[in-house]
């Protein structure tokens, strides 16, 4: 069965510091990986995705993520965090069908 794990309920980082939000997955076939962000009182927004090719993918708002097949991970990163990055982040995977599996989410808190 497909699954996604986001091991941290919350990540705290100071503004200007690099941030990492972790995601690991388990699928039986090739994974297609996504990151979405949910701001308060707003719907989920697409950030970036890995389909194939370069393991480092770049997305909206300066975010990037690295696909690591051997570690089955797809961690979200940003070199310099902003207070406005504070939100709820979801990792998601599809494989072998159209059913998308989401992680439980990680709340990012960036302190000024």
């Amino acid at each position: 069965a497909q699954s996604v794990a986001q091991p941290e309920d919350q990540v705290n980082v100071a503004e200007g510091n690099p941030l990492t939000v972790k995601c690991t997955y388990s699928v039986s076939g090739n994974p297609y990986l996504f990151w979405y962000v949910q701001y308060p009182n707003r719907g989920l927004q697409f950030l970036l995705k890995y389909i194939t090719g370069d393991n480092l993918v770049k997305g909206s708002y300066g975010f990037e993520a690295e696909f690591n097949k051997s570690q089955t991970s797809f961690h979200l990163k940003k070199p310099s965090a902003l207070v406005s990055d504070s939100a709820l982040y979801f990792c998601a995977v599809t494989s072998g069908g159209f059913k998308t599996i989401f992680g439980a989410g990680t709340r990012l808190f960036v302190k000024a």
Partner: protein
Amino acid sequence: GAGVSQTPSNKVTEKGKYVELRCDPISGHTALYWYRQSLGQGPEFLIYFQGTGAADDSGLPNDRFFAVRPEGSVSTLKIQRTERGDSAMYLCASSLQGSQTYEQYFGPGTRLTVT
């Protein structure tokens, strides 16, 4: 352009009643998804439509839940004999095509409360 819209934004109903939740996808998007999100959890897949047909309804929890998309655009999620455990945020999403590789665009959700 207009994004995915969902109505109503909030719905309070009594246990045992029937409810309908509506989703208007982005124009031209052929794929439509319904999810359920409980507090502190990620979205849980319910059903996927490609055009008018339900291509995957494996996430519907039981036969009280049903969804339609008769003209390949607007979709309605129908819940019969509601139970308190059905209380959750119901999300709709659409994507340009029904492919595993396309990102989804989400609506703001309908918060369902069953009393």
